[in-house]
């Protein structure tokens, strides 16, 4: 039985007169990889931002593991184990790679006194192992801001994994990455799902990637939910094809 870990129910969000999300309902099943696609401006990132608490939603409800989170703040939601990466890669640019990961220890149980503790050797080992996992081990002492764009993406991904999230929301993980590296990244995303047991919810523009990765896909267009199905169903859905070709 697969229960759903995120339940988005009738969520609407408007910025002034622009309706970015209109009555969207979707569920992210636990332990699976779910995709979210749609043309530019269809409201994908807005939906992500709503889920992680970046802005209040106008209407509807968002549940994480059965608990309402739509009124919670970014940090509180993050501490529940719902971590996101950014479309414009965001890393701590003046710190080295190891430090970038150490920041991201799970803060769920962090007490006031924990602030003044140092890091355990196990935490350091874990950070190094994750850097090895994304292929940045040799560069772990380099300043993160000096890495190439693709490497920064990988670092951000490793940082997210370090947080031991239950669900990872990835906003276009392959955007701007060299095509030859994309296969390696797909492989790592799948391993994050299978080996670490992290549920993934992925926004992606690259159709080859998302069809390869996700088991079920939601498609947005003009802020509304257009279609939902397996990669095959989505690929053959005339409404999806029309949306991408601009028939609307």
């Amino acid at each position: 039985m697969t229960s759903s870990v995120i339940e988005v129910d009738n969520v609407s969000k408007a910025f002034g007169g622009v309706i970015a999300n209109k009555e969207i309902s979707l569920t992210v099943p636990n332990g699976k990889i779910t995709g979210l696609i749609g043309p530019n401006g269809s409201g994908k990132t807005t939906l992500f931002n709503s889920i992680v608490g970046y802005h209040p939603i106008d209407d509807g409800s968002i549940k994480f593991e059965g608990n309402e989170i739509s009124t919670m703040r970014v940090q509180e939601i993050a501490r529940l184990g719902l971590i996101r990466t950014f479309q414009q890669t965001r890393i701590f640019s003046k710190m080295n790679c190891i430090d970038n990961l150490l920041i991201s220890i799970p803060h769920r149980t962090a007490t006031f006194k924990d602030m003044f503790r140092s890091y355990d050797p196990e935490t350091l080992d874990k950070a190094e192992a994750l850097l090895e996992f994304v292929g940045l081990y040799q560069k772990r002492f380099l300043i993160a801001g000096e890495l190439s764009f693709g490497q920064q993406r990988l670092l951000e991904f490793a940082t997210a994994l370090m947080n031991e999230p239950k669900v990872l929301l990835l906003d276009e993980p392959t955007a701007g990455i060299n095509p030859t590296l994309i296969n390696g990244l797909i492989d790592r995303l799948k391993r994050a799902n299978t080996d670490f047991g992290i549920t993934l919810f992925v926004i992606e523009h690259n159709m080859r990637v998302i069809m390869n990765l996700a088991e079920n896909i939601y498609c947005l267009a003009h802020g509304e939910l257009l279609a939902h199905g397996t990669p095959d169903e989505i690929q053959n859905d005339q409404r999806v094809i029309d949306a991408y070709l601009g028939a609307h």
Partner: protein
Amino acid sequence: MSRFLKGVDSFETNERKQLPFYIGLVGFGLIAPFLFPNYLFQIAILWIMILFAQTWDTMGGQMGYNSLGNIFFFGAGMYISAIVQVGLVYDVGVYTSAAGAGKASFTPEQYYQGIIYGTLAAAFGSALLAPILGLIMFGLRAAYFAIGTLGIALAAGELFGAWQWVGGGGGIAMPVHPGTADARAEFFYWFSFGAAVITFLALKRLYQTRFGLAINAIRDDEDKAEALGVHTLRHKIVAWSVSAFFLGISGAIFGNMTGFIEPLEVAFPTVTFGIFMVAMPLLGGKGTLWGPVMGAIVFHLVKEVTWTYLLGWQWVALGMIIIITVVFFQQGIMGWMKEKWPEKFGVVIDQTATEARNKGAAE
């Protein structure tokens, strides 16, 4: 600053490499009273400047919150210690309204007791004021935070100027040190030297904890830190509180050293000390451990030399330092060294791991 460098050599984590700095600085501090007995007051101010630079750097350098109002805690500490020192023996209102009458005297025992309690109260009082202000001010970011905090410092000067109980604009004459002029100079010299050393060691220790890393993360990208679940507000408040704690001590020392406190020029001197404490870490290299110390030494040296030999031009010289730093030398002394010799600071590609990997791939 990278603190968790396992298996790589860095100036910032290798205590042995910092040893010459410790010996030089502490050595100078210990022998200065014997070598330069006539300049004790100026050297005491140097230690206070170093303390200023370090505490500002906790906020501006390590955490990226450029506070122009840190001078508030200096003045607050000064007034708290004055109130405690006077209040232990006399009624504060009566004492201040009789200012200049010269009747109030303190026995040596009363004096030393007062200065100990006064300094402690200044430290903890300032550290408690920081969270209160923090809850209001930390809603602001970047330039708005800088201007907002500047407003606090300016407003504090005006408010204390209107508060007659603590002497208003007329100020408070502090209890007079019971010893000779030399004994007094030495007393305040050791007091400020000790405060600067303790501040340095405390901050150094603090930067080695998770806290140090978290405030660096807030500096680099606060939104990202929030998205990872870091308790950002908690860290920001603690950072300001720590900063305020030591600034409170410096205020207590300076108030007693000067002997007379008054709101605008002594307690809340926004355009002198308030700016110096920003300029010094910038000059030395903000966000580093030794940068603020170096910046304070260079700045204070230039200040004292121009005051002595180029009187009339001293403000021009200090202005030039600030302009040159901000326009051409933003990374500061330590930042420049880090750029020039990154490998000395542990910014290296792990060659052994690279070789091992290549070897593994070849086999």
